[in-house]
C-alpha cells in the first residue's frame, strides 16, 4: 500500500554542478503533493531522486537520505532497479513503447516482474486501464500500437503502465504540459482517484493545476543562474495559495516574478 516519503538533507549533483541543495520534507501517504517553482529550480531533479532516476544521467549523484517508510532508498546495497519497481514514474512527454501494442505496453512492467500467466495479465491490464480511465476508449483495439492513440490517451496509457505494477508511490513530472485542456482535465480527475491508492508527487508549471489537484504544495526556488535550487517552503496547498509564510512564495504565485 501507499507509503510515506521522508527526505532529509538531500543534495544532488550533475558532475560538479550542485543542482539542489539540502532538501528535507515529508510526504504523507495517500496524498497529492505538488512541486512548483521557476524553471531550473531543481524540482524535476528532486523528483527524480525519489526513485533513483537521477543517477541514470551521466555524472548524476546524490547525498542524503530518502526514507520510504523505514527503508532508506540510498542505503548501501539497495538495488535501484528494485526502488523503481516500488516508486513508479510518469514523464512530461507521453512515452509509450512505440513497438508495442496497447496491451503489451501495460503488461510491460508486469512481464519484468515475472507475471507471465495470460489470465493474470489480462485481469491486471484491464484493471489498470480502467484505473487510468482509458479502458472504454481502447478495449476494442488492445492489440493496436500504443503510439496510434492521441496525446492525452497516450499519457493515460503511460499512467496505466505505471500503476499496473502496483507501486507504492507515483511520481509525475509535468504530466499535462504536452496535453490539451480536455486531456489535462481527464488526467487531473484521474490523479484525484489515484490518490486513494498511491502516494502521488507531481511537478507542475501550472499553478491552477497545483491548486486543483494537490493537498500539499512545495515551492522551490533558486538564488540565481548556476545556483543550486532550494526548497523554500512546503505547506497545505490552501495555505500556500492564500497565505504563504514566505514572501518569495507569494511573489511567485501572484505572478510578480518567475
Amino acid at each position, binding site marked *: 500500500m501507499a507509503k510515506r516519503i521522508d527526505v532529509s538533507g538531500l543534495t544532488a549533483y550533475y558532475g560538479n554542478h550542485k543542482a539542489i541543495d539540502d532538501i528535507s520534507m515529508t510526504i504523507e501517504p495517500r496524498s497529492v503533493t505538488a512541486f512548483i517553482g521557476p524553471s531550473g529550480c531543481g524540482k524535476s531533479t528532486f523528483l527524480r531522486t525519489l526513485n533513483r*532516476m537521477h543517477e541514470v544521467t551521466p555524472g548524476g549523484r546524490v547525498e542524503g537520505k530518502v526514507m520510504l517508510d523505514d527503508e532508506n532508498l540510498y542505503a548501501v546495497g539497495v538495488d535501484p*532497479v528494485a526502488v523503481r519497481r516500488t516508486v*513508479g514514474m510518469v514523464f512530461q512527454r507521453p512515452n509509450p*513503447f512505440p*513497438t*508495442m501494442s496497447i496491451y503489451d505496453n501495460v503488461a510491460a512492467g508486469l512481464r*519484468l516482474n515475472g507475471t507471465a500467466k495470460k489470465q493474470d495479465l489480462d485481469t491486471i491490464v484491464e484493471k489498470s486501464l480502467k484505473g487510468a480511465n482509458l479502458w472504454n476508449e481502447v478495449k476494442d483495439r488492445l492489440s493496436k500500437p500504443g503510439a496510434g492513440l492521441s496525446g492525452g490517451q497516450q499519457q493515460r496509457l503511460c499512467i496505466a503502465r505505471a500503476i499496473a*505494477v502496483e507501486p507504492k508511490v507515483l511520481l509525475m513530472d509535468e504530466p499535462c504540459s504536452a496535453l490539451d485542456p480536455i486531456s489535462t482535465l481527464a488526467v487531473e480527475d484521474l490523479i484525484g482517484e489515484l490518490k486513494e491508492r498511491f502516494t502521488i508527487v507531481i511537478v507542475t508549471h501550472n499553478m491552477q493545476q497545483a491548486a486543483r489537484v494537490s493537498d500539499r504544495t512545495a515551492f522551490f526556488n533558486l538564488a540565481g543562474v548556476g545556483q543550486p535550487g532550494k526548497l523554500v517552503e512546503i505547506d497545505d496547498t490552501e495555505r500556500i495559495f492564500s497565505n504563504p509564510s514566505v514572501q518569495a512564495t507569494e511573489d511567485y504565485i501572484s505572478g510578480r516574478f518567475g
Partner: protein
Amino acid sequence: MTLSTTNTTIPPPKAQKVVTQPGDRIFLGLSRGSGILLLVIMAAIAIFLTVRAVHAISHDHGNFLSTFEWNADQTPPVFGIAVLAYGTIISSVIAMVIAVPIGVGIALFISHYAPRRLASPLAYLVDLLAAVPSIVYGLWGAIYLVPNLQGLNLWLNEYLGWTGIFHKTDPSSSARSLFTVGILLAIMVLPIITNVSREVFRQVPKAHEEAALALGATRWEVIRMAVLPFARSGIISASMLGLGRALGETMAVAIVLSASPQLTIHLLDPAGGTFAQNIAAKFGEATDFGRDALIASGLVLFVITLLVNGAARLIIARRKEYSGANA
C-alpha cells in the same frame, strides 16, 4: 503590387504565372539532368548485360541453372551456375550467422555499456577495420587464417562430423573451404553491421529508455524492451548492407577458396566457388564468348542481391505500424 512600385523592370504579375529566379531554373535543370542521367546509365548497363547474357545462355550446351562445371571456352561450351549460386549463398549465410550477433553485440557495447573513454576508441577501431582493402583481407586469410583454422576444422569434423555439414572428406586437405571463406567474410562485413547498428542504437529516444528504467528494468531489460525493438528495422538494414558486401566480395574469396566444380554439403571440404570468385578467376583468359558467359553469371548475382534487398524491405514494411519512426 508593392514590387512593381519599387522596381519598374518587373512587369505587373499575370494571373497564375509563377515568377522564377534564374538560379532556381539552373538548379532545377541540373538536378533534373542528374536524375535523367542516372536512369540512362542504369538502362545502358542493364541492356548491355542482358543482351550479352542472353547471347551466351542461348549457346550453352549444358543447362545454365543446373550444370556444375564452368567450361565456357571449350567447344561446345558447357557451363552452369549451380555450384556458384550454392557457394555464394552458403558462404554469405555463414558470414551473416557469425557477423550479425557479434556486430550487434559490439554496437550495443559501444552505445550502451562501454564508458565514454572506451567507446570512442573502440568505434574508431571498428571504422579502421572497414578501411582495410579486401585484397589485404584475402592475403591475410590465405596466409594466416587458412593454416590456423585447420585445428578448428578437425575439431568440428571429429565432434560435429555426424551432421554431414561439418564432415571433412579428407581430413588432411587444407582449410581453403567455403567455411573458411564464410569466416573471412564475417570479419569483412563486421564493420558495416556494427557501424550502422551503432548509429541506430544511438537514435533510440531517451524517453523510451527512461520509460523502461522507471518500470524497474535492468540495463539488459531496457535494451530488450526499448532499444532492440526500436532498432529492429535498422539492424535488418545493417545486415542487408553486410550481406550485399558478402555476396559480391571477390578478391578475398578468390585468394582463399580452392575452387572446384563440386557442390557438396560438407562445408569444410576445399571445394565449390562463388559468382564473383569465378568471374575474377576466369575473366583474364576468357574469349569473347567466355566473357559473355561470365556476364550472364554476374547478372544472376545481381538478381539474387535484388531479391535479398526486396525481402528485407518486405520484412521492414510489414511492421511499419509498430516502427519507432512514427513515435
